[in-house]
């Protein structure tokens, strides 16, 4: 069994890239299944269902969607196996840029939209820096020079990654991606995350809604960057 974790900011084209990649996987005789994780609502499952493959939706609701993804990884793999799949593709919600829900023995793919400008790779954090493959989308909307500058910035923060230029509309890049998915690692027992989740637990995490600082406890970082622990 292989696991692909696909992350990236909302609207970057994760679903479209994945749809084309799955078509290519099916063509080469693979048995992919998709788990789509989102926060509140999604209809992406209908787009995936049209490909005739097993699809499962996980809604994180009031949980952090990346945490939800991480501790449900086993469940996703079991579900995939019981549906006859040999590859589980997990499309994450892609909201918070602090977590990177990539286990070590998966193929980690980060999808990033070139039209957001060459400063974006510097802002995305572990989602991008710990990915195996970085997929640059919407490159047809900018000049070649802009694509190359963007690419250079991606390599600045993740020098070891493979960059694929993809187009969610035409399917450009899907063939390459499908090949890399096929050659990706097999999952194993006791996988660990590539990057630690946020260490802070504060009173907001437990439901505090008042804004003023005096109501907050736990590990807090001040505007000037100083970190403190307040509490018992």
């Amino acid at each position, binding site marked *: 069994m292989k696991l692909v974790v696909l992350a990236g900011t909302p609207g970057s084209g994760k679903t479209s890239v994945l749809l084309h990649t799955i078509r290519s996987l099916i063509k080469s005789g693979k048995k992919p299944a998709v788990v789509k994780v989102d926060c509140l609502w999604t209809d992406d499952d209908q787009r995936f269902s049209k490909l005739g493959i097993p699809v499962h939706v996980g809604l994180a609701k009031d949980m952090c969607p990346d945490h939800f993804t991480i501790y449900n990884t086993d469940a996703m793999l079991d579900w995939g196996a019981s549906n006859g799949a040999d590859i589980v593709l997990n499309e994450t919600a892609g909201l918070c840029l602090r977590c990177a829900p990539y286990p070590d023995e998966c193929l980690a793919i980060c999808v990033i939209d070139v039209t957001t400008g*060459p400063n974006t790779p510097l802002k995305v954090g572990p989602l991008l820096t710990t990915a195996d493959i970085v997929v640059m989308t919407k490159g047809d909307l900018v000049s070649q020079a802009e694509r*190359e*500058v963007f690419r250079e910035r991606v390599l600045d923060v993740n020098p070891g990654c493979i960059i694929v230029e993809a187009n969610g509309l035409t399917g450009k890049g899907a063939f390459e991606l499908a090949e890399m998915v096929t050659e990706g690692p097999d999952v194993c027992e006791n996988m660990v995350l590539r990057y630690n989740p946020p260490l802070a637990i504060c009173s907001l995490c437990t439901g505090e809604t008042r804004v003023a600082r005096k109501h907050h406890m736990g590990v807090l970082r001040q505007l000037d960057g100083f970190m403190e622990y307040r509490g018992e």
Partner: protein
Amino acid sequence: MNEELTLTILGGVDKDGVPEPVKFVEVSKGEIIGIVGPTGSGKSTLIDDIEQLAQGDTPTGRSLLINGKRPDAVIRVDPRKKLVAQLSQKMHFLADMTVVDFLHMHARSRGKGPELVDRVIELANTLTGEPISPDHYLTVLSGGQSRSLMTADIAVISDSPVVLIDEIENAGIKKQEALRLLSGEGKIVVVVTHDPVLALMASRRIVIRNGAMMDIITTSREEQDVCGRITQVDNWLMSLRDTIRRGEIVEELA
């Protein structure tokens, strides 16, 4: 630059999946080849296939060969080794950076030194009316300024042996000068165009319809003569345009 260079396009399929009539096009160093056809017929798609050196992995199923061989994957993706520079139809930059910062980054991505940056700006300013300053933000440049900068950037920084040009006539810049600048010495130039001057400056032109390469026309002696005559007309029109831009009066028929 490479001693020998040929670019071969192996035909794929049209928009309906039917094999295209032209199965084989070979272009050699120093040649300018045109791509013509109605809007939406698939000219830019052919340009894209060439830009990414397609290996049967794009919707058209075309394959590209360099010197008769399949290119290495690294040539396809690494800008430092890239053989193909492309001037697309894009008229604007989206990057929120100054001209000088952007050009520095681009030079670095192509493995070139920062000394080229001033030359790009200088050259761009020979193609456009209002001068571009290094401190300008890319996003505030006009269409003509952006296209001039993209053109100069390709001539100086990208400097690849294959240059793809998509509809330079719509760019609001001096198109023949731009083409001369881009074609340089011994390059392969592929130009998508509706413009009779540019189309007839090419030695051959590929005709596209419904996504397929239908035919290749070699520019005849008669067409070359026509090209010379319409170039004069074109230059005259351009000088009139400049006269009007400068706020002067058009005085006589030249």
